[in-house]
């Protein structure tokens, strides 16, 4: 650290002492500047790494998903990967993103207007600066997109040659000066320089103390507006292309109608929710009216969505839809049980019991155990052989031994067979193999949830419980009307984490899946990994990964809206 410290000093000393620099780095202003430099230097490695492996890949994945990419970079195919994954829903999804960006732009613009009106200012000059900055962002993105294939191509060019630094620098130079790349670079750098030049020149003449706010917000609003426009336009052209293709083959392509009805369904759902919540706090007649209307809208939207969805996703990827179905079963099977059991355990542990520490350590064990190892153990406990521990127990109690992890049939079908009832296929439920994985997940995560619940219980002040007890509430009443509502933020947090976790679940499922289970345990993430690792369809897998991302974002948003309004933050 001290060595690095000296190197910072040397930056100041090493330059030729040309007066202005000395001025810049000494004195009070200089000290501040040196402080900034230290700050940037300290965050530099982390920022570079997180950008390279955490943020840049998102844009890169988008780029990959728009290409045919089987191990090697293929031609640009537009929305084909998305269309083959989720059919026409892809267009709905991208229009949704465009609408979201437009909404962001409008909201930011409104914020600026309010602020300006409040302080009686007219920040018109920021419109110019903001549009220049937004333009430079857009042009930079375009430059990167144009540059990407050239830079990626370097890897192929050095094949078989001796990898030297000179060769790399030469090839990189060629890539940067390629015919398609250079003009894009010039355009970007011009606008970029112009934007900063004007900002610096005009900065002093802007007196407002809120100039920083105005500049960042206008830039943000204009950038997202531009993004919304570009995405909407791109989706539109892709849609036209898809319709034209369909016409040529003589098939009907009701994409437009589908989009309209899906969008209408979603909007109605939103309105119904708004009405339902706004009914709270009004007089009773209005509550009744609002709730009735909300219910009506809800029914219409549900009918629209459920009626239209199968047609919209008809040509989508079968594995993906099965993965989604499996994930939903997995969520429904894991989250409620996991939360219920851990709530009971935490509540009992919270009573003064001896060996509280011991129990906590023991409950937490499955969670810290490496997932692959504990999954291997479950793999054998729930083995298909007649002598596996679970089958031994079942036969001991007079049951029939099962195939467990190798059983693709639904649990309700099996139960029905046992009881002599014919269960229809739609009611088959999760496969027995998936049930084993659900049991594994509950076993693993109960300890974690218990610890978090314990922390939540510790935050409830004892006075409330005591005063309720003095008022004559019994223990169940205290639990139901005081503890549970006060724990709702914890429950909310845990359920969100758990549901998102089921969509991200990978390790234990990858270990416990078996070809004989016919993919009935493959959750969303496993399907994506398979598409990527086994089938090597990179573009397709990337498109699927974005669908996963969209689902997780939507879940978080809906969870925030729905549960956030019901959670009681003491």
């Amino acid at each position, binding site marked *: 650290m001290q060595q690095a*410290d000296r190197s910072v000093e040397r930056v100041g000393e090493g330059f030729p002492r040309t007066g202005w620099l000395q001025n810049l780095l000494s004195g009070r202003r200089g000290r501040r500047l040196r402080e900034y430099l230290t700050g940037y230097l300290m965050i530099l490695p982390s920022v570079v790494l997180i950008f390279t492996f955490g943020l840049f890949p998102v844009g890169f*994945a988008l780029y990959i998903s728009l290409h045919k990419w089987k191990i090697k970079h293929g031609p640009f195919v537009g929305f084909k990967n998305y269309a083959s994954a989720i059919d026409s829903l892809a267009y709905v999804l991208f229009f949704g993103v465009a609408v979201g960006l437009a909404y962001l732009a409008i909201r930011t613009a409104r914020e600026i207007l309010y602020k300006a009106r409040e302080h009686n200012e007219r920040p018109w000059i920021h419109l110019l600066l903001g549009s220049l900055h937004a333009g430079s962002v857009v042009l930079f993105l375009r430059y990167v997109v144009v540059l990407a294939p050239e830079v990626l191509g370097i890897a192929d060019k050095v094949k078989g040659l001796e990898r030297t630094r000179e060769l790399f620098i030469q090839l990189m130079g060629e890539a940067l000066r390629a015919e398609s790349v250079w003009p894009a670079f010039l355009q970007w750098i011009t606008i970029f320089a112009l934007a900063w030049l004007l900002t610096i020149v005009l900065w002093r003449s802007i007196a407002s103390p809120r100039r920083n706010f105005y500049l960042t917000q206008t830039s943000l609003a204009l950038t997202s507006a531009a993004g919304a426009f570009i995405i909407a336009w791109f989706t539109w052209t892709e849609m036209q292309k898809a319709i034209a293709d369909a016409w040529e083959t003589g098939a009907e392509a009701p994409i437009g109608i589908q989009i309209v009805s899906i969008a209408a369904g979603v909007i109605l759902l939103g309105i119904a929710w708004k009405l339902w919540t706004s009914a709270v706090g009004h007089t009773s007649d209005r509550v009744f009216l609002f709730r009735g209307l909300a219910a009506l809208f809800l029914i219409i939207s549900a009918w629209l969505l459920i009626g239209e969805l199968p047609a919209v996703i008809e040509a989508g990827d079968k594995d993906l839809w099965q993965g989604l179905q499996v994930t939903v079963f997995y969520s429904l099977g894991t989250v409620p049980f996991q939360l219920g059991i851990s709530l009971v355990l935490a509540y009992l542990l919270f009573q003064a019991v001896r060996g509280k520490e011991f129990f906590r350590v023991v409950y937490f064990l499955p969670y810290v155990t490496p997932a*692959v190892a504990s999954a291997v*153990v479950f793999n*054998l406990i729930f083995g298909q052989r007649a002598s596996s521990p679970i089958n031994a127990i079942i036969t001991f109690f007079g049951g029939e031994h099962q195939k467990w992890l190798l059983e693709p049939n639904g649990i309700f079908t099996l139960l029905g067979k046992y009881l002599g009832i014919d269960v229809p296929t739609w009611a088959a439920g999760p496969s027995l193999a998936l049930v084993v994985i659900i049991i594994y997940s509950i*076993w693993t995560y109960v300890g974690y949830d218990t*610890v978090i619940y314990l922390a939540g219980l510790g935050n409830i002040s004892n006075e409330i419980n005591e005063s309720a007890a003095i008022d004559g509430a019994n223990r169940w009443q205290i639990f139901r009307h005081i503890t549970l509502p006060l724990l709702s933020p914890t429950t909310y947090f845990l359920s969100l984490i758990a549901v998102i976790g089921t969509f991200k679940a990978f390790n234990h499922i990858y270990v416990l899946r078996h070809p004989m289970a016919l993919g009935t345990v493959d959750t969303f993430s496993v399907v994506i990994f398979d598409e990527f690792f086994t089938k090597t369809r990179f573009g397709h897998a990337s498109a699927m990964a974005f669908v996963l991302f969209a689902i997780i974002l939507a879940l978080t948003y809906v969870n925030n809206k729905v549960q956030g309004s019901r959670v009681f933050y003491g």
Partner: protein
Amino acid sequence: MDNSAVKTPGGRYLFSQRLGRVFIYVVLILGAFASIVPFVWMLSASLMTRNEALSSQLTTKQPLLERFVYSEGELDELLSENIPDFVKETDALGVHELKMTAREYANQSEIYWVADDSVYRGGLVNYLFAWSEGNFSEFLTNSVQITFITLAGQLIFSIMAAYAFARINFPGRNLIFGILLSSMMIPGMVTMIPNFISITWFQRIGPLQWFDNWPALTIPFMGSVFAIFLLRQFFAQIPDDLFDAAQIDGASHWQFLWRVVLPLSKAPILVLTVLSFIGSWNALAWPLLVTKTPDWRPIAVGLFYFVDAEAGSWLNFQMAGAVVTIIPILILYFLTQRQFTESISRTGLKG
């Protein structure tokens, strides 16, 4: 907290309360039992012979470990009778060749291990097999090395960044921090594919060997938003007075960080260390992608392939491998249990 322990004037629990307490303990013990049973079975099966493990018995009749010493030449004669060179196994996935000669595996009802002039017999032989034939000794060293390289980078970079975000007021600080935080929402499946392509590119152009080597397994994890976040929360709590005093004494940021902040932040660094170990013991998808040979295979991937291919239907070996995988993490967990659980309940995050 103590509202259930209401006592009668005589100092004894009421009968109904006593019944309630019994019920509480029954439920808690049932929960503990369910958590522990798989571990107990794993341990027990890891000491069995193959036949015992395949049957439904709960304990082994094998001794733990016995050693027999033979004089030179005598042993080879003993082993050469009626035993095939390689033991082959058929199961649902097809025929597997067990990488084990008759020398190591003599008889299905007893387990032997032959080393030089002596023969070992007993349950612990399963561990000897997993350790040397199953390559778990290598996987373990690989995982430890991967963890330490990742951890070193992560700690150095994150401590610097967290300090800057907590203590230095540079322009764009909140914006940059917000952007970094937002990257925590991105699911790993989205970034995995492009990262794989990036690393292929780095491998082709660069002087560094990425695949089947430490860079691909460690460098992408050195920049950790979670670590920065955790440390920043901690650094922000350090009183300003300390910093002011240091500044009056003429200490620079680096000196303050090195002399004052670091000695104070042993707790979060410990937590990050444990989380880093757990993280690299859990990693499966990414190491599967970037390791084609066993040279740098971490322990989770090692166990995965061991169970999938080498150990086949030899449940006893599988369980021995699982025990070897789990033990280091359990030791670490028991040592740091208190701080670890506390940090989990404070941040609610695993890393």
